[in-house]
């Protein structure tokens, strides 16, 4: 379980702007890597590159030593679960049908009983099984987020790529999501998250990549990367790291 992902010196241009300027990273199975940085730093773009959706001008992505672009698309799709920030539209799709689309790489003509089982299991994992017959429009922000994660889980992926999975959630759901990610980590998945909340990133990550203007500003363990100096330089905001007086919830103290 889990794929070792290597990103080497990826450069990507978007309308003559350097969206990514020589980004590299390493992450393996059973690890959570958080990508942090200000808006426009390139977090979402990096996730898309790792997913294979965007191809860099220079540089490469490797999955277990294999060049990503040489792996058949279907195989990549079966291995990667993507959780975007938002959906383009919803079209009165039921939650169940939506989660079922995650099984697309495995479907030849129409979903089978197995596909339906897996979708259902995924919904149970995120505590959203009771929403199965609702339409996506009826869901709250938190419910929708969980459902999108369920869809990624239905893929039975070895890699999870999440783009700001907690930004729309209230405290309780944020914790639930983070706990879910920890559970997935212990199953051995390779997890990359683009995240805004530095405290959450600090708590949950094994590694952190700090991006600024498409370049890697800092990479390494959370305490190495998330220093007041780094944060001030990149975000322009003076911060203090409190190790003692932070707000922790019961669930976290495990």
């Amino acid at each position, binding site marked *: 379980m889990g794929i070792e992902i290597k990103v080497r010196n990826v450069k990507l241009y978007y309308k003559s702007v350097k969206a990514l300027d020589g980004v590299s990273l390493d992450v393996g199975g059973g690890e959570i890597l958080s990508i942090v940085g200000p808006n426009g730093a390139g977090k979402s773009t990096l996730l*898309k590159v790792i*997913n*294979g*959706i965007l191809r860099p001008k220079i540089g490469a992505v490797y999955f277990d030593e294999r060049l990503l672009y040489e792996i058949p*698309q*279907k195989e*990549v*799709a*079966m291995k*990667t679960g*993507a959780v*975007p920030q*938002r*959906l*383009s*539209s*919803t*079209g*009165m*799709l*039921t939650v*169940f*049908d*939506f989660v*079922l*689309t*995650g099984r*697309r*790489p495995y*479907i030849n*003509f*129409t*979903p089978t009983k197995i596909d*339906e089982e897996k979708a*259902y299991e995924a919904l149970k994992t995120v505590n959203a*099984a*009771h929403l*199965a*017959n609702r*339409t*996506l*429009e009826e869901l709250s922000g938190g419910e929708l987020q969980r459902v999108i994660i369920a869809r990624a889980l239905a*893929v039975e992926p070895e890699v999870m790529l999440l783009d700001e999975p907690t930004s729309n959630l209230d405290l309780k759901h944020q914790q639930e999501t983070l706990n879910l990610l920890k559970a997935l980590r212990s199953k051995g998945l390779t997890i990359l998250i683009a995240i805004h909340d530095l405290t959450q990133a600090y708590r949950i990550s094994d590694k952190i990549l700090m991006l600024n203007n498409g370049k890697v500003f800092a990479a390494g363990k959370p305490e190495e990367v998330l220093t007041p100096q780094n944060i001030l330089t990149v975000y322009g905001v003076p911060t203090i790291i409190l190790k003692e007086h932070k707000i922790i919830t019961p669930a976290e103290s495990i």
Partner: protein
Amino acid sequence: MWIKLSIKHSNYKKRLTLVCLIILTFFLVPLSVALGWYKASLLDILRVLFMPDNSPLSTVVWDLRLRRVLAALIIGAVLAGSGTAIQASLRNPLASPFTFGLSFAASLGVAVALLFLQGGSIQRFQIYFYNPFIVSIFAFIFSLIQVMVILLLAYKAGLGARALVLSAIAISFVYQAILYLLQYLVLNEILTSTVVFWTFGDLGRIGWGELYLVATVSLAIVIPYFLYRSIDYDLMLSGDELTKSAGISPERIRLETTIIAALGTAMATSFVGIIGFICLVAPHAARLIVGGGHKYLMPTSMLMGSIILMISDTIGRTVIAPTIIPVGIMTSMVGAPLLVYLLIKGGKYGHRD
């Protein structure tokens, strides 16, 4: 456990709806065939249906009624399916094959065909050189050219949903302008009126050979493709990125869908004229009944298209008999208020694009 059952129950309801619609369709076919100006008993009509002979009643039942009913069946399904597919691939509930300006292109084709053949005056001697299919062929070719140009233009912009819609609008305006220019400068009144009359969709216009052609293409290519792509249309709704991450190319889906929808619609339009609203009303109504999952939505939408078109045509030829209201006018009269009703009644499509 009961959650699983509720999913099963919901699917069961959708299946039931589908079956009911199929039964309704099969019931409507003989009903529509039984209705009409020519007086005959139900028994005679049935007899002639199963044992066609050379009597006037047989001609009425087969050539004048059954043929249009079958045409309504096929063309309604194709229009509704095309509408559903294009709406999914463009993530836009107001999209339809006619968004691509197919009606203008077809009308332009007719105008050009008439110009070349009539030469601006009504001459009798042209009768022996006139291929009866020329008008249809021109309408079809121009429709396809229109779609190709739109796709080419959108291709330059990456075949994104927005690019396609903008391209379609732009090209449609160009075709419309050319058509109006032709009408104003070149066509005389007779030709202009002929074009206008042609655009009123009329199911009575289609012959047996043309019906076979439409049916073959629809049943062999168009309808199976839309059904096959159902899961992909569900996927496309969420966005291009999720689609790509699932290993499917959204551009390819849009390209294929546009071409096949154009093929089916252009063919139907070239034979019977312009029939509007079905491609908007049927998918919307179906969505309200069976939801947005295309596994059930697509066949339901197609059946609704067939049913609506059949009913419109039958009403059109019976309500102020013995004169016929062309079905294109009927679908507008029936479709517009129906669409308004559906929009008011609800069903949020949900747009976050």
